[in-house]
């Protein structure tokens, strides 16, 4: 539900902020991400970069909720410079931090939504943690391109409304074994039917060191 909202917001941002020279007949990319065993990979971020000059980035704010002592969404892809708010929807405090080079910040114990959003001004991934809930892990993936989408549980991601032309498609995932750069796949976008891109990626085992305790899950909504 929330993801859908975010996607809508993104779409709106794209529509408003990106002046597209070939707006008359936009194309799209339909990407599918599977792991080595052919299972669809959710929460992968597929992005396209145009061969030419960098496209203008959307500036719309994004939201990373803390809900039921989890980060929601698990993966939040944003364009460089996006301010992200961290609303705490639980009735206890959280202490959100990131030591990632992409964005180092700390929101010491707070309730509600901090006044100032965190602006992610460098591309890369920021791993989010909560100092008092070891199992809480979230990812903000900061991209230098406006063309990106996150895969659904079926492993599908659609990047629509883009000008036809030559692009490079890449995929990122929190457990991706290789560098994202190495997933670079050329793709040509034509008007009308979306171009298909398929990624088969190797993932590290899902090993979240400390799972959320069962009783914690029973709390909240």
């Amino acid at each position, binding site marked *: 539900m929330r993801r859908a909202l975010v996607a809508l917001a993104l779409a709106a941002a794209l529509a408003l902020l990106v002046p597209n020279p070939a707006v008359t007949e936009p194309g799209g990319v339909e990407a599918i991400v599977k792991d080595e065993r052919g299972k669809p990979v959710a929460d992968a971020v597929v992005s396209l970069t145009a061969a030419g000059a960098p496209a203008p980035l959307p500036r719309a704010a994004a939201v990373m909720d803390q809900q039921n002592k989890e980060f929601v969404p698990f993966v939040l892809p944003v364009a460089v410079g996006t301010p992200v708010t961290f609303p705490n929807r639980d009735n206890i405090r959280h202490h959100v931090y990131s030591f990632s080079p992409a964005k180092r910040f700390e929101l010491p114990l707070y309730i509600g939504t901090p006044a100032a959003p965190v602006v992610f001004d460098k591309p890369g991934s920021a791993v989010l*943690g909560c100092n008092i809930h070891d199992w809480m892990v979230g990812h903000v993936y900061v991209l230098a391109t406006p063309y990106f989408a996150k895969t659904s549980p079926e492993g599908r991601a659609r990047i629509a409304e883009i000008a036809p032309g030559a692009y490079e498609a890449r995929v990122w995932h929190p457990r991706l074994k290789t560098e994202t750069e190495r997933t670079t796949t050329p793709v040509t976008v034509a008007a009308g039917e979306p171009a298909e891109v398929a990624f088969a990626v190797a993932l590290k085992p899902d090993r979240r060191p400390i799972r959320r305790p069962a009783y914690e899950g029973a709390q909240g909504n």
Partner: protein
Amino acid sequence: MGLHFHRFRSRLVVVFLGLFALIQATGYVAVSAFVRASARHTVDEELRLASTLFARQLEVRTQQLVAATRLLSGDFALKTAVATSDHATTASVLENHRRRVDADVLMLAALDGHIVADTQGPARRGAEFPAPRLLAEAEAGRDASDVVAIGRHLYQLAVVPVLAPEPIAWLAAGFAIDDRTAADLRRLSGLQVSFVTGHDAGVVVHASTLGAADRATLARGVAGARASGVLDLDGGEHLVRVEPVGRDAVVVLQRPLAEALAPYDRMLLILLTVAAAGVVLALLGAVLVARRVSRPVLTLARGARRVAAGDFDVAVSVSQRDELGELAATFNDMVGGLRERERVRDELERTAKLKRFFSPQLADALSAGDESLLASHRRHITVVFCDLRGFTAFAEAADPEDVMRLLHAYHATIGPLVFAQEGTLERFTGDGLMVFFNDPVPCPDPAARAVRMAVAMRDAVAGLLEEWRRRGHALGFGTGIAMGDATIGRIGFEGRFDYAAIGTVTNLSARLCQEARDGQILVSEPVYAEVEALVEAKPVGALPLRGFARPVTVFDVLGLRTEPAAPAAGEVTP
């Protein structure tokens, strides 16, 4: 001989004692072996229990260590310091946290396995993490802990990730396993405890309750075989159990066998004392038995020696009712038999001697000890006197050799005839001879015997005399026989006794002998009356004899009737 029996006795004692000692020794050895095996088993069991206990204790300690390390790794300040690559602060936080949990070492390794900070000193920064395998395990999400040697020191090490919230580094915390740890365990278990790593030549004893020399021995022993066994350390044999406490490390538990055997030593001492007392008693018993056996044997031997020396007056007294008693009884019987035989032989010898001088009857009676025969008594006897006619003249004229030769031949001829008729030869008087019958042994027909003897003598002597007559010697043979009562008994004096018959009958027969011419056998009337049926005789008439008041009717026996038929009445008139 005596020595031999002493040897026999000693041998008996030695064999008896030897057997007893052998049994005792076997018993002792068996019990000792059993006790030793039992003690070993006990120690083995103790070691096994102790090693189980240690393993469990170590496990608990490991869990505590892992928990403590995980707690430390969750510290936000630490995470911050690590994430910001603030190495000096990181090291300081590590030192602080080390003190919090009272660990001996705290290390922080980067994800690439190099040490970022180490409480052992800043010099270790950048070094390879000493237990990379633990990092791999931690990365795989498992509890990573092991006993790890870092240099000469041994640590119980736990590795956990520093999560932010994904791993950004590895935090390792360690408790030292040192001599103090070993000493603590020794206090707990009473065992010698050593912690060892490595194989073969690379065996290192990191911590131990043992002395330096024993550590070296232990290292050699453990290098040999990583199993339980026996090691010869200071203080004797130690039973050893080797139990792994990590991938490369083992705890070696030892207990001196002597310590486990100590409670049994007292028992063995008692056993030994009992055995020794048993041997002494057995010695006494053996000596007693040997003496009991050898004493009758010695007694028998003494008896046998006396018998060998010719003393048959021996009776060994053995009161035992066993084989030896039987042997003694048999010995006594044997000696009795020997004594009897000796007695018989003596008697025969004596009789033979007597017979040379006395008539066989008298000799027999005398040798039988029947001295009563020699006592004076009266008996109706028949007396025979005989001698050679012309012997005095011959003895004067002839060579003494010839005289003796004649006498010898004469006696040799008539002697057997005396014995043949069982006459009692009373005396020789040169050529004369006096024989009587019916004494000392009574006979039913003394007169008949006397006459038969006289006839036989006359016939035998006639042949002998014929030869001498041819050589010119006028020799004849006359015989007189009378019958009547006589006093018979021993006469003479101490040193020379004779058995003599005294009485008229003796005189009469002597006179009749004097009267007889060569070849004549003159018998008195009573004699003739007795033998009338046996003989051919002719009356000689009544002869006046010196010493006799009245003439005596005499018959001349011519010979024995060839057919001893019933005498014809009236043929011979008295």
